[in-house]
């Protein structure tokens, strides 16, 4: 008998007004597995992540983490559930008013009640794990480049040694070399932690590097789910068009909202 899945989404629906964003998502992620969801801009990838985190509430369906229903969870239970999670945001989402080390230590100090001295030591250790010197910890986020901000955001995501890590467009806005550095760091850090990860991206190089399985989201549905190594011969014309970045094919760009 196989182990129960870490995260299970069943028939998840989410709309904004008349616009249907998620139209019946079914996805199951095993413990320690790395799943990457690909898809064009505006297809609902971020909405799916935020629904699992409870930041957005789907109208229908079920989302379970370790067998516990997330939709409609009380705020106190959600705070407890969030202790399992780490998240790297698309724009890094670092707190401008706090120094870099305070950003990294935030989850330890505020979420777990650790004292600041101990949390600072861990923050510096995590900064070193993503290739940043101790001196960078004393800077403010605005003093860092985009690539360094992503590294700090990654250090913050792994600081609490979470069981589950979400990556929202981890390489967006970075040059190809820095993007590859971030991908390598993601693989290294998640392997060390043994974490279950769910990433969303439209960067195929990133998806190939970090994924065990890839799922493609199109018009609110997962139209293909398979092993990362099978992506080049998926037999799905939508997936083929997307991974080769062709303008011609079944996916038509909607020029009007």
């Amino acid at each position, binding site marked *: 008998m196989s182990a129960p899945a870490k995260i299970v989404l069943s028939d998840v629906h989410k709309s904004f007004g008349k616009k249907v964003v998620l139209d019946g998502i079914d996805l199951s992620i095993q413990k320690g597995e790395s799943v990457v969801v690909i898809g064009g801009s505006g297809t609902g990838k971020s909405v799916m992540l*935020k629904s699992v*985190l409870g930041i957005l509430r789907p109208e229908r369906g079920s989302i379970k983490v370790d067998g516990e229903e997330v939709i409609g969870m009380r705020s106190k239970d959600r705070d407890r559930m969030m202790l399992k999670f780490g998240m790297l945001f698309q724009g890094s*989402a670092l707190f401008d008013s706090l120094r870099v080390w305070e950003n990294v230590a935030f989850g330890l100090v505020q*979420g*777990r009640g650790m004292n600041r001295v101990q949390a600072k030591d861990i923050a510096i250790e995590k900064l070193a794990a993503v290739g940043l010197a101790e001196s960078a910890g004393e800077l403010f986020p605005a003093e860092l480049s985009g690539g360094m901000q992503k590294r700090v955001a990654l250090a913050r995501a792994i600081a609490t040694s979470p069981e589950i890590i979400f990556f929202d467009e981890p390489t967006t806005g970075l040059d190809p070399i820095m993007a590859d550095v971030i991908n390598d760091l993601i693989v290294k850090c998640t392997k060390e932690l043994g974490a279950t990860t769910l990433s969303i991206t439209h960067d195929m190089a990133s998806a190939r590097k970090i994924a065990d399985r890839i799922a493609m989201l199109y018009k609110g549905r997962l139209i293909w789910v398979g092993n990362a190594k099978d992506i080049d011969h998926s037999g799905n014309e939508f997936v083929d068009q997307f991974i080769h970045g062709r303008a011609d094919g079944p996916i038509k760009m909607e020029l009007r909202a």
Partner: protein
Amino acid sequence: MEFLATIGRVFLAFLSHVGRLSAFAGTAISHLVRPPFYPRLMLRAMVEIGYYSLPVVGLTAVFTGMVLALQSYSGFSRFAAEGAVATVVVLSVTRELAPVLAGLMVAGRIGASMAAEIGTMRVTEQIDALTTLSTNPFKYLVAPRLLAGLLMVPCLVLVADIIGVFGGYIVGVYKLGFNPSSYLARTWEYLEPLDVISGLTKAAVFGFVISLMGCYNGYYSRGGAQGVGAATTNSVVSAAIMILIFNYVITALYFGK
């Protein structure tokens, strides 16, 4: 028919705002009394509201007191009631002018800054990041600011009372030629504790309203820089209107008989 539909839409939108604001205020108040508390953040908000607003509130108060002395002297001399200048200054300042003008100045300075800060955090996903770090945004961002507004605006108004009366004294003694001791005696003669208490009650309500509108508009801001700009404007305008409305309500409660 189109005209009636427009009125209906505007009215429904208004009710929706009132409902959302009431729910926001209720949630925020419930987090004021439930741990965890953030004393460092509250202290920072108290310094920002109380200490850094002192110059602008002090300047407003001193010139208001001075103008009031000049205007009432010029008006009252028409019916030989110049002796009432000191009494008019102290009653007007403590009951009305110090709380209302200080409230409006703080709304412009603090309400706008809160809306801009929280709004920027919203559009850069920093509020979502708080949630993923097991930190409730209401407890961390809203509750300390509400409490700081509630406590510090009365302190500011107390200072404004003293400075405003002092402004009237300067003009009364050095420009209008009143005897200093008789001016002070007339100031105290008709002043009752209720005059000051009613002003401080207004200040506490105004402080709460300013913080509430700043946090509410920032928390629900959308759409990047333009959304944050709109949130800032809405916060100042709505706080100013609510200050004027609550000013009448509290005056009617204290002195309506």
